[in-house]
């Protein structure tokens, strides 16, 4: 195993050796439970269950990718910012003093963690919705391919969101500030951007998540992947640039 692979593995061990993954697992379970409750108890305006009557409706309901972007964004922001808060960045940079490599290893590990958050969140939501559908008159209608696309899109969006959050966490270095930054970047800023430039509506993370989940087709798949990558990689690149130049104090 070469040095860089070891660094990635060590970063993955960091992510799994505290209670943080369990906290996020609880969040994913709660979201899945809310979806199940919505199917079981929710109705349309006319009192019907029309919102789960077609495969497209159900796919829209279980499309977790938008949530994955936001939740994994917080995951990435916290995972990196706590490194600075707890000063564990010191042993990290002593072990791998070439900081660009250390930061890249951390981003890869966090992307993997974000992908897992997204995929697990999507899987739990699908299972919860499927379990709740027998309370309605409709069976689970999403095809296997559709399920796989929803899970894949959630994993991809989770990875992107985590990298975005990690980039913000690297720059801000404070857990509270990093979480605030991730919320601003993923929840507050996109609607403001759309208000300023209406044509940007198709290119904000939530819209791209729907495209990748097969719910909408506002833009092509490759374009959506590229746009999502840009959302993630720009803050990550800024973070790597900053970490290279900044003293560890």
């Amino acid at each position, binding site marked *: 195993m070469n040095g860089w692979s070891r660094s990635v*593995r060590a970063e993955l061990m960091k992510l799994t*050796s505290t209670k943080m993954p369990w906290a996020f697992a609880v969040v994913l379970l709660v979201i899945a439970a809310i979806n199940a409750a919505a199917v079981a108890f929710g109705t349309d305006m006319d009192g019907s269950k029309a919102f789960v009557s077609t495969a497209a409706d159900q796919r829209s309901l279980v499309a977790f990718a938008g949530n994955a972007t936001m939740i994994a964004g917080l995951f990435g922001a916290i995972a990196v910012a706590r490194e600075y808060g707890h000063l564990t960045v010191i042993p990290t940079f*002593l072990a791998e003093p070439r900081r660009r490599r250390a930061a890249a290893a951390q981003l890869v590990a966090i992307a993997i963690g974000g992908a897992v958050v997204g995929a697990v969140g999507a899987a739990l939501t699908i299972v919860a919705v499927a379990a709740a559908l027998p309370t309605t008159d409709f069976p689970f209608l999403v095809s296997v391919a559709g399920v796989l696309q929803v899970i894949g899109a959630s994993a991809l969006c989770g990875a992107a969101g985590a990298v975005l959050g990690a980039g913000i966490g690297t720059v801000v270095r404070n857990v509270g500030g990093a979480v605030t930054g991730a919320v601003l970047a993923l929840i507050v800023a996109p609607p403001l951007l759309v208000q300023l430039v209406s044509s940007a509506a198709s290119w904000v993370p939530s819209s791209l998540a729907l495209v990748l989940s097969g719910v909408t087709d506002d833009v092509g798949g490759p374009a959506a992947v590229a746009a999502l990558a840009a959302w993630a990689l720009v803050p990550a690149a800024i973070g790597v640039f900053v970490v290279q130049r900044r003293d560890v104090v």
Partner: protein
Amino acid sequence: MGEGLELVVDRVTKRYGQRAVVDDLSFTVTPGRVTGFLGPNGSGKSTTMKVMLGLASPDGGTARVGDRAYAELPEPSRTVGAALETNAFHPGRSGRDHLRILACATGIAGRRVDEALATAGLADAADQRAGEYSLGMRQRLGLAAALLGDPPVLVLDEPGNGLDPQGVRDLRDLLRGRARRGDTVFVSSHLLGEVEHLVDDVVVINKGKLVTTGSLQELQQRTAVVRSPRPDRLADALRNDAGATVDVVAAGHDGPDAASPHLLVRGLSLDEIGSTAFTAGVELWELSASAGSLEEMFLRWTAATAEDVAAPGATVADQRRDEEVV
């Protein structure tokens, strides 16, 4: 391992804003010896160590481990073991997991984790969350991390803080043992009583500048205590005939044995002082190196540099207050 490398700090300057925290600092730490890095709070010790380990970039000068910068070492964690902060771990992670992660990142065999924990005296608490550790246990965890790669160079920032007496003795034995086998051991501390029993050499800084460096024994012998029934005449002879710096200390000051006035003489060996006294026809009651007074020497060194750098009108006390604030 027994192949310690020199640590070379060569004209390093580090500024934060307009303030030079480290100012044109040069010294060398040699293998096979324990070197103490001494200075008041805020004198630039930790910043210097961070520069040496590539965690802070100097504004001028270079710091090397052997013949290369820390970041250019092929296996940095196997070459230099460092403990800089007592809290550099996640409080929710066990001590063992903390070390397992470091071992993984550096390609160090997993069995070394248990060995390092045992060496640092933390084996029984290895699976406890690090956030529950006492200050002494946190110091031990930092030491275990530094020892993980069995490196020939150790750089430790205040490793004795919070250790109980047994822990202090264990640390001293460990570091002396590492130096005996040829390792380079560089330790900062403000616990001068401990340092005195630990180090071979000292590097003393104040306000980022080098105050003095060298063998502790030699430095101690540079100041001699002389008692004589005719202290004033002897002081004149030492000053005027031999060019020494002499302070006359009144009886009852500067130590419990000072029942009569005594002289503190700098700049002459004991032999030279004896010869000067003999030539001057002055009887000596005591002629000894000023041993056992690192604290006194430290206060003299740092007070002298504080005076050197004091602004017009500022007092040494003012300077010390500034240092505490830093």
